[in-house]
């Protein structure tokens, strides 16, 4: 289902990035990196007034020829970016939304690990397997 999942720190460096066709990793890196501009744009468009009730899900960031890029931002400005094959029509907004929520929960678990140093790259096996499950479901 997802072909690439990335967690980006507040300072816009990658905490975690994994893509399934590993031979084309670079392309996804570029794609995710570029999508951050759109994330920034969407965040600034939302304004600051309603921080608490803000919708974390940002929706479709931009479509490319083969992929769709979705975004999600936590309250601590950590961004989740998911790249989905655009040929996959089974995925609707709701599914994407729930996937992001799952990702967020798992990310929170990682953060709760007292041995995790915030800002480090994520090397959690649990997180890894969760991402794998999200990627494999359809693939």
């Amino acid at each position, binding site marked *: 289902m997802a072909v690439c999942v990335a967690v980006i720190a507040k300072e816009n460096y990658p905490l975690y990035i994994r893509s399934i066709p590993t031979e084309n990793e*670079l392309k996804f890196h*570029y794609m995710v*990196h570029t999508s951050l501009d759109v994330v920034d744009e969407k965040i600034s468009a939302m304004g600051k007034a309603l921080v608490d009730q803000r919708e974390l899900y940002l929706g479709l960031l931009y479509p490319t020829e083969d992929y769709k890029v979705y975004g999600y931002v936590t309250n601590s400005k950590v961004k989740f970016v998911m790249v989905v094959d655009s040929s996959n029509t089974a995925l609707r907004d709701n599914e994407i939304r729930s996937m992001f929520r799952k990702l967020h929960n798992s990310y929170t678990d990682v953060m709760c690990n007292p041995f995790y140093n915030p800002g480090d790259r994520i090397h959690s096996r649990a997180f890894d397997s969760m991402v794998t499950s999200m990627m494999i479901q359809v693939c």
Partner: protein
Amino acid sequence: MAQCVQSVQELIPDSFVPCVAALCSDEAERLTRLNHLSFAELLKPFSRLTSEVHMRDPNNQLHVIKNLKIAVSNIITQPPQPGAIRKLLNDVVSGSQPAEGLVANVITAGDYDLNISATTPWFESYRETFLQSMPASDHEFLNHYLACMLVASSSEAEPVEQFSKLSQEQHRIQHNSDYSYPKWFIPNTLKYYVLLHDVSAGDEQRAESIYEEMKQKYGTQGCYLLKINSRTSNRASDEQIPDPWSQYLQKNSIQNQVYVKNNNEICFSVDGLPNNFRAHPLQLDSSSDPSNSIDDPDHVKSASSLHETKKANTGIIHGACLTLTDHDRIRQFIQEFTFRGLLPHIEKTIRQLNDQLISRKGLSRSLFSATKKWFSGSKVPEKSINELKNTSGLLYPPEAPELQIRKMADLCFLVQHYDLAYSCYHTAKKDFLNDQAMLYAAGALEMAAVSAFLQPGAPRPYPAHYMDTAIQTYRDICKNMVLAERCVLLSAEILKSQSKYSEAAALLIRLTSEDSDLRSALLLEQAAHCFINMKSPMVRKYAFHMILAGHRFSKAGQKKHALRCYCQAMQVYKGKGWSLAEDHINFTIGRQSYTLRQLDNAVSAFRHILINESKQSAAQQGAFLREYLYVYKNVSQLSPDGPLPQLPLPYINSSATRVFFGHDRRPADGEKQAATHVSLDQEYDSESSQQWRELEEQVVAVVNRGVIPSNFYPTQYCLNSYSDNSRFPLAVVEEPITVEVAFRNPLKVPLLLTDLSLLWKFQSKDSSGKDNEEARLKLFPHHMGELHILGVVYNLGTIQGKHSLSMSVRGRQDLEIQGPRLNNTKEEKTSIKYGPDRRLDPIITAEMPLLEVFFIHFPTGLLCGEIRKAYVEFVNVSKCPLTGLKVVSKRPEFFTFGGNTAVLTPLSPSASENCSAYKTVVTDSTSVCTALISSASSVDFGTGIGSQPEVIPVPLPDTVLLPGASVQLPMWLRGPDEEGVHEINFLFYYESVKKQPKIRHRILRHTAVICTSRSLNVRATVCRSNSLEDEEGRGGNMLVFVDVENTNTSEAGVKEFHIVQVSSSSKHWRLQKSVNLSENKDAKLASREKGKFCFKAIRHFIFHPSEKYTFADIIFGNEQIISSASPCADFFYRSLSSELKKAQLSVHAEKQSIEDAVRLIQKCSEVDLNIVVLWKAYVVEDSKQLILEGQHHVLLRTIGKEAFSCPQKQEPPEMELLKFFRPENTTVPLRPSVEQLSNLIKTSLHYPESFNHPFHQKSLCLVPVTLLLSNCSKADVDVIVDLRHKTTSPEALEIHGSFTWLGQTQYKLQLKSQEIHSLQLKACFVHTGVYNLGTPRVFAKLSDQVTVFETSQQNSMPALIIINNV
């Protein structure tokens, strides 16, 4: 989009200007050629009007035209070839590079600071060239020729004739169907006759007359006399004339050059009208493919000629024959032409078209559209003719009324009448759309949008959707990318001027396609600029599109631009954790730089990929590495003599660098085993290094009479990160210095390092080694001085398969070691300062002696207490004599070199294995039980030098070891008493005969590892003999019980132990004889057997003047081992001194201030009897019987206390409970224990064992009893003897019966030191029986002590007496 020099309001009018053709006669062409210019080029700098122009529009309104520009060009009869245009554009772009010292703008977006050049001149020149080189098409008229200049020269024979010829020619070109190109605006083109006159050569009057003739023929408005060439070109150009052509012609030098080439053709052509057959200047051979033209051999010639012409071009001064007046004349001519010729023509044409339009409108309004077409004369609706229909819809014939509107619109547009142009375009658009003529419609839409934008006062917003539709139509329906591109360029520029960057970017990106890399690259770059120029800059999109642009640039062969794009994108990705992308960009930058021969940049870019902890796959890393090495190799080939550059790989862990001074250790050579010394193979161990340091301090202190000199530093042979590196280390000439460098390979691919060598600042020669992880490099200093080791030089290569050639480059890496952080003063604590590290800067000093030590027959396994003889060989391998050889060890009891005098040392025995290590004397076996006595002093045995028994001088024969000499000395070893593995450190100390200021001494280390196994366990006790002294028993007798247990578990193949001799050694006591308890005369002990010996010891009063010990040997075999000789005595003294040291330590640990009295009391229970048990062990090893010898020592100190040969294992102290209150610090006054006090007086009762008494005669039996009281202490003792029975218990009475002491029941006595006093007592018995006489209670106290209580003295054994009745 980047900023442009021209605003959009200037750009668009300049891009669409009235076009005028020029047709020159040969002669006229020749005249202009004198200036190295064609006629069209001649006019080019002056083609912009300096003044405003007025004209009247169809409604007779006055219309002002500002900055009108006209474009004059030679007639070219073929449309430009797309390939040629592409090449031209390519050249234009590659010719325009960012200026070197261009100050880039700094854009701050979020946390990004980007240096971005705001302008992109290559894009502007591309756009200009692109718009100029647009081929004229049928659906629009903007670049159709409005007029034609016919140029002839005054020097021609028949100028008027020539003019008519030219006129015919023009007519032929326009109306003959052979020529579909160029396009003409309207059928009756304005012809303007220009007579060129060469002022310097021609006849002025003739020219004037011809001009007059022309005026009559063509009217004053239609002809002009242009005088040029006022000076001859060969005249020295003393007058500096500005060259306005250069900026027009240089800019597109290629284009120029094509012109030049063509013009050269003209010069040689003999044909009357060569222009006709001239190819378009942009046309290339059809075979030529611009993409690969450079390498194609066919084009080498053209390329080289191209090069020549280019060179020639730069040397050419344009307009050499023109004076400033000529310039003015030309300007005047253009003005005249425009005012009098062109504009009235345009005005007239517009009027005509307008009239047509109005009439048509009238018609179309009144008639149906179907009939409209029929009525509009010659117009044939192409819709009905299917074959003429192409993909872009239908084609109109040139005279179609729809096209007339378009024509009028274009004309209005060209003369900047945008209002009118817009309404015309709008009308035309509707018509075209109705007719489904898509190409036409798109063109009209495009121009409608542009003119709407350009309308003064902006009455309507810019119709962007017109543009979008136009672009889409051009691209998708008409498949005309060129038109689409023009549309996009215009629209994007307009959007940019309205700050609609996002839309502009979208437009630009949409037009990128596979068919043109150059266009895509430029558009992507502009899109990137759009992103960065947005109100909230989109940095990452900018970077991404820059990368895409860079990619397309590199595909288009624009390497420099590609590199620039990647570099700009790099700023965004750099150091943000996007390592994969960063690596990719760096890799590309490296490659592009390499192809551009910017090798330094290439190297640094590749370096970046390699030095950061790369997350790439191994294959990728291998590729990076190969590429890097390849580039690097090229760099180094360019400057082979330059300094070797720094290599990034592998990492050097410089703090792990180790330096070793000295030769490598020789491997063991047969029985010879070299001293372990120090080597790089040893791991650093702070504990052991501290031990070595202490040993060295000890020996140095001994050498310097007990003081360690202030400038003493422990010798360091191996420097590492733990050693003290603050001083310059000292190295010795002719001794190698080994440097170990720790390399780490951060990559997943193996690296191959070859020809590794050190780099230093001191002339010398090197040798090299190789190691994957750590490399050891050696250098030999040949001179004294200071050496600085700077770094390593090596070849870096990859390990590849067998077939491919492995590549390697040579480079260096510096070794810079940071010292430890200083943390002593306050300043150092508050700041971060590092001390120096001088590991790599040794000082080479003069020659020093060098000792090598070998051990021969050195055992690795021993029984506890076993004595083994080995040999030590000392070799001086240097060229200086050495002296003062000493050895120091923490375990001096382990070895000895024998006594000081030869008498005491047994001669070196023959090689026989079973020969005893001891000095023996054969005795007859009869004298078994008596002791043989000898004496020796401890001084003779090398122990006890001052307070440092650990420092042992080596008895060298001459105290000096000459160069090359070697000495072999015997050495006895005794297995330590504890079982297990022992590491024994020897430190050999020696000095040079000549005193060196820098190095006073040298050391050699050896660590021996000995594994000991259990042998015997000896326990001994001593107690007073109660029996009355015999003949000489003055000083008191002692009984010594020795328990010997075989604790060997026979894992070493020990069959049995034989106790061969027991010796005593004491200053005051000696063994007298053996009191044999057991029948086991030969004292064999099999495994786990225990034997008990009892000896009688007596005090002897032969006082020796010195500290001499008396040795007494009691032999069980038939050989006496002389215990007072080496090695037995050696080991005895050594164990004694070590024991003493321990005792001292424990005393020190106790309280120092023991009262004298207490000590006195203690003393009386002390003995100093030392027992040496000598044994032989029969060992079966490899079915061979071996006899091992050994000795155990037991030091008896206290009477009654058990002493052991081996220290008893101490139970590890139990974990102490945590106390939560402070323990009360009660100091108990030290006093002697009761036990000690009870040993003051020794008592013994002397009485007859049985006494016969006739009770029937006398009922009372009186027995005399002597009570002997002997004072054991050295002080006076008060003694109270109480004879009264104290026991009150009835049983005691029952058992012993009762008897009474007669006479005085209590005695008070004072006994002097060692005095024996006898008391005559009388015991009275009333019955027969057995009685215990041991009832007298003796109390004693020191006479001069008041505080000490009287203590009951130890009761002797029951003294039984038998009373018989007779």
